[in-house]
Structure formats: structure tokens, C-alpha cells
């Protein structure tokens, strides 16, 4: 029974990807290129060369954490859609710490920046957490909309009070070198990836071996049962959303110190690391191993886009198309998970299809 379930979970994740690649292949054929060759270049260059692989792993770091931030609430039946906003404020504040506090000691500087990033993530997540726990306001709606509030606030702060006046575009000052992660050799990989991996491992451990994980599972699967057995559901809900916010803020701080070094309006990329994290979590069925695989796969897709552009005549937008199709398939799955879509549909169908007497 259990292994069957795992198999279905894997199929659930692999199928949308394969379908998306298939549809992408048709489009590539239509352009007049060989899809196998294109995919070969895309994944070959991003996974099977040292430079490509380290680039991919480097980009997977923040995704691993945003994916975990989402998964942890998802498993408890909560939907923190505000990871993007929490990551942005975390990154922004870490950037300010990096640029304005001249601590000097590299270790201490980074620790302070991480602490500030995670804390503001928590503070920002406090709004939906309290609304949800005390007023039963749907956290999905609140977190989702607050992202845009945060984006706008940060746009103002970075183009106004904290703008680097010397730069020709909207950006905060570059952080001190003591707040920057040093790269491994000539790769782009930094110790932040290892920190992300370590944090991820700790979360995994807490989730499967301790009361914390039991709570998450019980609350997610049956809140009334949790209450009846003495788990403080309300307190746990608050705590979980805050933990999720902390991870998101931490990821933002790490992204700032290992990749961006300053806050620009495109700090978290085109789709946004928080949104990507949602995709990663869904693709990995909210399971630890799944998230590791899907975050690496997803970042391979992104780094591969550049290679496609470089080595073939296929426009790199093909990757965005594939991403979009994956999201489309996954959102069907998400709707199904949250609202039991398939069950409702098949039920209706079943009733109609039954043979008459």
C-alpha cells in the first residue's frame, strides 16, 4: 500500500514534466530544429559539465529553501503563498546589513545578515499567522496579496531612501566584501549551498523523527484529532507559518550574499524564487528527497536556457514555455489536492455512466 502510494507520487511528478517536455519538443520541431539535440544540449550543459553542474547547484540553493518553506506549511494543510514577499524583505534587509553595518568580521557579518533576514521574514509572516489563528482569515489570500504590498514597499525603499546614488539604475548599495560568500575556485558555487543543504537536512530530521513532524502531519491530516489529543493547533499554526517565514527570509539573505550583492528590482529573478519554490515543492510532492531532486531539475532547466540560446537557433523562451506548461499541469494537481477536483469530477461522471436497469 505504502510503496504504491510512493509510486503514484513519483508518477504524479514525473508525468507533468514529461508531458511538458513532449509539448516543448513539438514546438521545437515546428521551428525546424531537432528536439533531442536541443534537450541534449540543455541538460547536458547544465548537468554534465563541471561548470554547468556547479551553476545549477548554486542556483538550486535558494530554491531548496523556498521549496522547504512551502512544503512545511503544505504538509500541515496551510498555504503560505507569501514566501516570495518574505524572501524579498529578508534579502533586502540582509542587503542593508551588508552595506551599512561595517562589521568587518566575515563570519559575524554574515551571521548578523542571516539573523536579520530570517527575523524580518518571521515578522512579515506574523500578519497572516495571527489573522489565520485568531480570526480564521484564509492565509492563502492574505499571504498572496501581501507579496505585492511588500514588492511595492521595497520598490519605494530601494528607489528612494536606500538608493545607491552612484548607480545608473534602481539599486541599493553593494554589500561589503565581508558579507559576500567566497566562491569555490572558479565556480559560482559558494558555501551558502552547503548551508542551505544543511538547513534542509535539519528540517528533514525534525520532520520525520520528532514531535514537530508528528504535529505537522496530524494537523495537516486531521486538525480536530490534533486538538483532541492535546496538540495546540492554533499555536502550532502560528509557529509553522513563522518558521516558514524564517526559512524564506533566510533564503533571501543567502541569495543576497551569494549571488546578488545588492537589492535591485529584479532581485529574485523573472518568475521569482518564492514562486519557483512553490513549483519545486509541488513537483517534489512536498517530500524532502523530492524537493532536492526537483530543485536541481528546475534550476538545470533555468541554466540550460542560456545554453540553448548559445548553441542552437531555438529562442531561449522555449524554456519559459516548458516551465509554463509544467506549472499548468501542477496547478491542476494543486487544485485537486486542495479541493478534490478529480474526485468531484469522476463522481459526477460515475453517476451518469452507470448502466441503467
Amino acid at each position, binding site marked *: *500500500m*505504502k510503496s504504491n502510494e510512493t509510486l503514484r507520487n513519483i508518477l504524479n511528478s514525473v508525468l507533468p514534466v514529461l508531458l511538458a517536455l513532449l509539448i516543448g519538443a513539438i514546438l521545437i520541431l515546428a521551428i525546424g530544429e531537432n528536439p533531442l539535440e536541443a534537450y541534449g544540449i540543455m541538460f547536458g550543459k547544465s548537468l554534465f559539465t563541471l561548470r554547468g553542474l556547479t551553476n545549477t547547484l548554486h542556483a538550486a540553493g535558494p530554491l531548496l529553501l523556498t521549496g522547504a518553506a512551502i512544503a512545511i506549511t503544505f504538509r500541515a494543510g496551510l498555504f503560505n503563498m507569501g514566501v516570495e514577499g518574505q524572501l524579498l524583505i529578508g534579502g533586502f534587509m540582509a542587503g542593508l546589513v551588508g552595506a551599512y553595518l561595517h562589521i568587518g568580521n566575515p563570519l559575524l557579518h554574515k551571521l548578523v545578515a542571516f539573523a536579520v533576514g530570517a527575523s524580518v521574514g518571521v515578522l512579515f509572516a506574523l500578519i497572516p499567522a495571527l489573522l489565520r489563528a485568531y480570526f480564521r482569515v484564509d492565509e492563502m489570500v492574505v499571504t498572496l496579496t501581501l507579496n505585492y504590498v511588500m514588492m511595492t514597499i521595497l520598490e519605494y525603499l530601494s528607489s528612494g531612501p536606500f538608493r545607491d546614488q552612484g548607480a545608473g539604475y534602481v539599486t541599493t548599495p553593494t554589500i561589503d566584501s565581508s558579507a559576500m560568500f567566497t566562491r569555490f575556485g572558479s565556480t559560482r558555487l559558494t558555501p551558502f549551498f552547503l548551508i542551505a543543504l544543511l538547513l534542509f537536512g535539519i528540517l528533514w530530521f525534525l520532520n520525520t*523523527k*520528532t*514531535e514537530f513532524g*508528528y*504535529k505537522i*502531519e*496530524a494537523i495537516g*491530516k*486531521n486538525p*480536530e*484529532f*490534533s*486538538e*483532541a*489529543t*492535546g*496538540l*495546540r493547533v492554533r499555536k502550532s499554526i502560528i509557529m509553522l507559518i513563522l518558521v516558514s517565514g524564517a526559512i524564506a527570509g533566510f533564503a533571501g539573505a543567502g541569495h543576497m550574499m551569494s549571488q546578488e550583492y545588492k537589492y535591485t528590482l529584479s532581485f529574485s529573478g523573472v518568475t521569482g524564487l518564492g514562486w519557483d519554490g512553490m513549483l519545486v515543492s509541488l513537483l517534489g510532492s512536498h517530500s524532502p528527497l523530492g524537493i532536492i531532486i526537483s530543485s536541481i531539475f528546475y534550476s538545470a532547466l533555468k541554466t540550460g536556457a542560456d545554453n540553448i540560446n548559445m548553441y542552437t537557433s531555438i529562442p531561449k523562451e522555449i524554456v519559459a514555455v516548458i516551465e509554463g506548461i509544467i506549472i499548468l499541469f501542477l496547478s491542476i494537481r494543486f487544485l485537486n489536492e486542495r479541493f478534490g477536483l478529480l474526485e468531484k469530477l469522476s463522481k459526477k461522471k460515475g453517476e451518469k455512466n*452507470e448502466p*441503467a*436497469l
Partner: protein
Amino acid sequence: MGTILQTKDLTKKFGDFTANDKINLTVEEGEIKAIVGENGAGKSTLMNMLYRQLEPTSGEIYLRGQPIEFNSPRDAIQHGIGMVHQHFMLVPSFKVYENILLGTELAHDKLRFLVDHKKEQQECAELIKRYGFDLDVNEVVENLSVGQQQKIEILKMLYRNVDILILDEPTSVLTPQEVDELLLQLKELKAQGKTIILITHKLREVMQVSDSVTVIKKGQIIGNVKTSETNEAELAQMMVGRKVLLTVQNDHIGQESPEVIYTVNDLTTNNTYGNIVVDHVSFEIKKGEIYGIAGVEGNGQSELVKLLSGMMEATGGTVHYKGEEITNLWADELRKLGIAIIPEDRYAQGLCKEMSLSANSIAGSTTSDAFKKNGIFDFKRIRQHCQELIDHYQIRIAEFEGNVSQLSGGNAQKLIIAREMNRQPDLLIASQPTRGVDIGAIEFIHQQILDFRNSGGAVLLISSELSEVMSLSDRIGVMYKGKILGEVDPLETSETEIGLLMAGTIPQEAVVYEK
């Protein structure tokens, strides 16, 4: 009189599960046919097929020898088959006559688009008189008791001229007096030529009112008997497939221990709408005593249990246990103090269906260190603990690593009891401990409760099955509209007396609580 309704090899499958397997049922015209079986035996499925709320997978239904094909309940009614559901389908804000005529309103003679209320009232009054019911057509439904609402459901069908009336567990929501009244009413309807099919699992009522009985077990008919030629014990044996004790041996030792272990004083709370649902409830339980709480469902028992098991907050009053105040403590804190809790709804509150057996076996103890090593779960010990519970309480499982959803109702309840009793509690709060479990498991659960009492434990038993409360308890408090209206001794009281209390009347003999 001939056969009015007959089914031939009627089968219903839900996926791989066969709910009804080649049912051949014969109902004679003008009889009261009882269909008995344990919960989940397939009684309701069968009736829902007769009433066309479910489509049979295969098989035929014959009405007066003619094969019939219904497409909807409306169709069934037109053919003369009506059903009264366990849960009523009435509009609470409408008057009695409006509910009876819902969907078949009588139009005004001249102004066709208007409803002729006068004519409607008249017709309904005549209908009520003809069948000897006692109802005011102009009463608003929400002001009526459950028993009266049930009458409206029956009248709805009678107005539509049905010949066959199907009643699904009609007595589960009634007080004993209302049950007696209903049974009389059914006999009266029979005298007027109606055929009645009664679905129930209460054998006493079957013996009282029916002419013939069909026993269903696991989707199959395993016996057809004339009521006059059988008895309760035989029917129970047919239902379960082995000999069962209908009532466990209760010696009522009631160890005259003076030591009060649990005191509830003036406990009060509101529901989310601000209505008082538990109203100054006070009682105490001594060591070695079972205190039963009886009452018609919905009179505050559920909320009382929630208050006492840490799922709801009291707005007033106190609870003391072993001299310590425990009002509004959390469920895990109560359990740590030695209180075992069997919640009302086993799948909503007692177990988590989608979690493993072993995860469920430690529910409520996760905050304690019993199953941890350095703060980390010791899964080996947890599995061992779960296996011990399964062995000791003879819980039938299919797969040890699987989820609770694999368990039958009775075995799921056994798992809860095993988990709670294994903690060596001094007080047991048991709410509806045998609801929806088979007779065999009922026997086991009752024995567990009595053994616990006999070894000096205190028990609070809340149940809507009056016979259960009567046979197990040493003292009984009857709840009505959130209050404990009176306290009686089960050895000295009668069902009549309790019934009156359940209906809100205080008989003179009963000890009335000061509040």
C-alpha cells in the same frame, strides 16, 4: 394478501466492494417488515435502491408482480413507495402544512399563480385527523420536537398516497415515550392497509411491532423469520453469526467507596453563536463508580464531553480531579493526570485515519518522554507498543504498517480503548463508546468498562443509547437543554421516568439537582 414488493438478485457494488449481494427480499402487503443488521451490513443501501436514490448494479425490483424501473425518488413515490430518512428533510422556518405540501402546492381556484393556503391547511388538517396524528398544521417546524418533526415526514408521504412506507432507523433520535408513540402509530397505519418496512438495529422494537424479520449480514440475506417464531437472542445471533450476550453481567457492586475522585461544579459554556449549551452542570463521581449521562442527542452532551476532554473552553464553573483543579486544561495534560478519553466521534477526534497504526497508538502521549530517546522518537519502542496493544486487545488488522483507515469501526474503537486504557488511568470519560460498532465489539467494550470500574476506576459514560446507560451505570444524570435535570438510580428507576426527564419533565420521584 399477496406479495407487494419483491427484489430478485438485487446487487449493488461500489467499486470492488459489494454492498448488496443478490438480495431476494419479499414484502407482503399490509405487513410490518423489519430489516435488521449491524451497521454497514447493507440495510440502507438496499432501501436506497428501492427508493431509487441509488441505482442497482444488477437485479430487478417487482411491485405487485410487475417489474418496475424508477429513475428518481419522485418516481418511487408515484409508484407508491415513500421513505422517511434518518435525517429529516424539512424547512425549519415553514409551517407544518407548508412542509407537508412542499413541491405539490395547491393553486388558488381563480388566481392560478397563487397558493391557496386555506385549502392547504384544510387538506392537511383532514389528513392528520384521518391517520390519528396529533399535530397543529399552523405550527412552525423549528418549534416542534424531533418526534413531531418525524410525524411531518410520515405525513408528507401519506399525503402523496404511498402504500409502502420505508423508515430508516426512525427511533434513534426519539425519547422512549416518543418511540412507543411511533410504534403505536405504525400499527395504526398497518391497520389502515399500509405496508411498512422498518430498518433498525434495535431488536426490542422489532419484537414489539413487526410481523416478519429479514436479517442482513455483510450484504446478504441470512435469514427470514416470522417475528412470532423468534426472539431477540436468536436475531442477535443471526446478525453477528455467533452467540452474544445482549447485556453484560453488571453486578452493580458500586463499591461503597466514599472517595470522590471527580467533581464537576456549575460548569457552563456557550457555543460559537453565544447560546448557552452547557448550563451549570454539576455532578461527582466516586472511585469504582460509573456515572451515566442519558439524554436525547443534542441536549449538550457533546459539548459537555468537549469541555471535560479539553476541546472546548468553559465560561464558568470548575472541574476538580483528585482534589486538583483541572478546568480548561489541555487534552494531553488531562491524560498525563490519569484521565482516559474516548471521544464521541472516533474518526474526527479519536484517530487520524490517514496516519499509521503506530502513530495513532501514541496520540495524546507525544508530549511525554515515554516514546522518546533524547527528545527524538524511538520508533522501535513505538512499534513495539503498538504491537502490544494489538495483541492484548485482539485488534484485527490487515497490515501493521498501514493506516487506520484499514480498520473496521469496532476495531478502530478497540484501538482507541487500548491506547487510553493502557495508560493505567484512574478516570475514564467514555462518550458514545459503542456507536456504530457491531454487537460483538459492544460486548467487549462494555466488559472493558465494567472491569475498569470493578478494579476501582471511575467512569463517566455519555451515551444516547438509553439501554447502554441503564445497564452499565451506577447512577444516571439526565441532560435536557444543557442542564442535568435530574439524577436517578438505574436499579430503581424505569424507562418511563428517564423518558420524562429526557423530554424535559421532572417527575416527582426523581432526585432533582439543586441547580
